[in-house]
């Protein structure tokens, strides 16, 4: 592979020639990457003489389909993959598509313990397997425009009740406090209220609890309905031009978004000027002791269970997720605690943010990450989008339809229902 590159992000700036690759100890691994991770793999390749990586770029939406073919054919199966979509973890650890390796025996417990709280929830199964390591944390926190807040005399909300009151007040001034359209933020509203979309509450990964009838769940849905009605939650998704235009016109007061929303959306897409963006803790209901935050993404690395070189696979995955030199330069919040601390300095010293505690908020609220945030063979997002998009009726009235849809999907995907 190309080893002449001097990699800016990496710990090493190696000029290792790719000769000597034939030496007996060298292990050859095939890795499938998206374009964003190619340089990181190359850095690994350059820093490790004993492991030679064959890097293939694959379009993330095609990855599972290509893997299914490769698994059927038994050839060209990659040793390591990156999964941006966590449902892929579930899809690739079934009887029919048994791709993912259980890393629990191969990766040092110290490495596992080094991850931030709840970071590995998408990887750990109820029966104690470890199917992946997390690249980045992406739980929901509160992003707000400090200038708009001060100008309008608003206080930053700490509870969902305060959030709703703020939303209605903001709507009267023509401001918005987020979107009522995008699936992930909606899932956050609902799961924070206690909606059980399909969680393996027991110790069997194949038994799901699906219950959207709880009082907290209904309460959350009704809050969304009222905020949609008052116009506080935009009817557009956050990446739609209509929403982007509003944000650029200084209409976006606050957004309950994931940790990457500031660096990746508000800054480059909404182009909010320097010195205005600030963050605060994930929201909780007034009668609850602490918040529960769903996440939006946060990719993971996994390995092939029949790889000829499980140790090397574990080494690649560990390095990609925990190498401080690599992760501290990442664009998203590292899931590994030590890397995350190194990453902190970049964010804290960035004059773009109005306050220097943005990272501290992210780290503090990692504790409140939803314990069942993971990918399942039931795609919660798709079900929510389908049912909510079917009519303009209030979300609260559609909860029973949504529950039925989720239960049907669970059965099709060979889950048992706990209730």
């Amino acid at each position: 592979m190309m080893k002449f590159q001097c990699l800016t992000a990496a710990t090493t700036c190696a000029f290792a020639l790719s000769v000597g690759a034939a030496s007996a100890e060298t292990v050859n691994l095939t890795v499938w990457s998206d374009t964003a991770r190619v340089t990181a793999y190359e850095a690994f390749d350059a820093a490790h003489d004993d492991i030679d990586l064959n890097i293939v770029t694959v379009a993330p939406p095609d990855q599972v389909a290509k893997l299914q073919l490769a698994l059927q054919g038994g050839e060209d199966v990659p040793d390591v993959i990156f999964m941006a979509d966590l449902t892929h973890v579930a899809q690739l650890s079934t009887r029919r598509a048994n791709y993912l390796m259980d890393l629990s025996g191969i990766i040092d417990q110290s490495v596992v313990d080094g991850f931030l709280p709840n970071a590995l929830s998408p990887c750990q199964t109820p029966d104690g397997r470890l199917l992946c390591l997390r690249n980045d944390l992406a739980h929901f926190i509160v992003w707000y425009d400090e200038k708009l807040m001060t100008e309008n005399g608003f206080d930053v909300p700490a509870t969902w009740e305060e959030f709703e009151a703020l939303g209605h007040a903001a709507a009267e001034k023509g401001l918005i406090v987020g979107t009522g359209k995008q699936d992930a933020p909606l899932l956050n509203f609902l799961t924070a209220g206690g909606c059980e979309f399909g969680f393996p509450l027991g110790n069997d990964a194949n038994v799901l609890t699906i219950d959207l009838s709880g009082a907290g769940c209904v309460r959350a849905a009704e809050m969304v309905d009222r905020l949609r009605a008052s116009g506080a939650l935009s009817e557009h998704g956050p990446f739609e031009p209509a929403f982007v235009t509003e944000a650029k016109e200084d209409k976006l007061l606050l957004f309950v978004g994931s940790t990457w929303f500031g660096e990746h959306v508000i800054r480059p897409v909404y182009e909010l000027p320097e010195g205005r963006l600030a963050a605060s803790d994930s929201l909780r209901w007034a009668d609850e002791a602490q918040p529960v935050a769903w996440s939006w993404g946060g990719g993971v690395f996994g390995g092939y269970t029949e790889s000829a070189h499980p140790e090397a696979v574990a080494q690649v995955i560990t390095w990609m997720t925990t190498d401080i030199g690599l992760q501290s330069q990442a664009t998203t919040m590292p899931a590994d605690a030590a890397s995350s601390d190194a990453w902190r300095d970049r964010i804290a010293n960035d004059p773009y943010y109005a306050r220097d505690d943005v990272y501290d908020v992210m780290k503090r609220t990692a504790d409140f990450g939803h314990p069942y945030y993971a990918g399942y063979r039931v795609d919660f997002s798709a079900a929510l989008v389908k049912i909510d998009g079917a009519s303009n009726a209030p979300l609260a009235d559609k909860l029973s339809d949504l529950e039925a849809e989720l239960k049907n999907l669970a059965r099709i995907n060979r889950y048992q229902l706990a209730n």
Partner: protein
Amino acid sequence: MARSTGKHPLQRFTNTTVMWVILGAAFVFYMTPIVWLLLAAFRTESELFSASAFHIGSVDSLLATWNNLATYNDFLIGEWAFNSAVYSVGGVSLSLVAAVPAGYVLAIYDFPFRRLILVLTLIAMITPNTVVALPIYLQMQALGLTNSYLGMILATAFFPFGVYLAFIYYVTSLPRALVESARIDGATRFEVFLKIALPLSGPLIALVGFFSFLANWSNYFLAFVLLTRDELYSLPIGLAVLISSSGALGNDVASDIPINRPEAIVAALLVILPVLLIFLVSQRYVRAGLLSGAEKG
């Protein structure tokens, strides 16, 4: 066409006006996306959102966009374009060799299984990709033809639609008497095809060649199934990789490589332009073939 053979000049005027209004509306409808796309290539990310739909950007931003694309992985895009050209030239040539004579034979002669072949051809045309993905993959793997130029070319040479175009063309446009008289003169079937049918097939070859090229150049499915090495990717697969994993369209994917919407648009143009070019060129041949065809009457 302006000859006044009709009985109601006024009605004729109305007909012509209505026709031009409809054609004009269709023209606007079809051209809008193309014009938009061409203009959009000159805009920056934020101009795409903020400026009006037909805003004209600047050459500078096009150059900046192109630079981002070209520097991606040491101009890997150039390699993909080269691969696409190889796959297409090979696939189109083979598909012409296979489809045109086949359509001719099916149209002119009657023989056992003729109808069966036509029906199977029709079935092949309407078979969904999902159904053949796994079989084709396993079959090509068994033959050692995955990740190879030959495998892609063979797979794309199968072009049943071309056979149908040829079939219909010879049924409608080739006088049977011409073939029969040549047969009486003692020519073999193959000679008849070479000497009588082929010279009259200019428009057909242009048509089949063009559609075969379109299908080949934009083929996503076969490349998706058969290729698992970056350096063998075709343009459409490469662009999908580029677009989808760089967050150029959705922002869910966090990445800092400079591939965004303007790059996606310019990359898209890269896929489109050769098709347009080939279309314009082949149109000329269709017309030229038509003139030579007219002499037959």
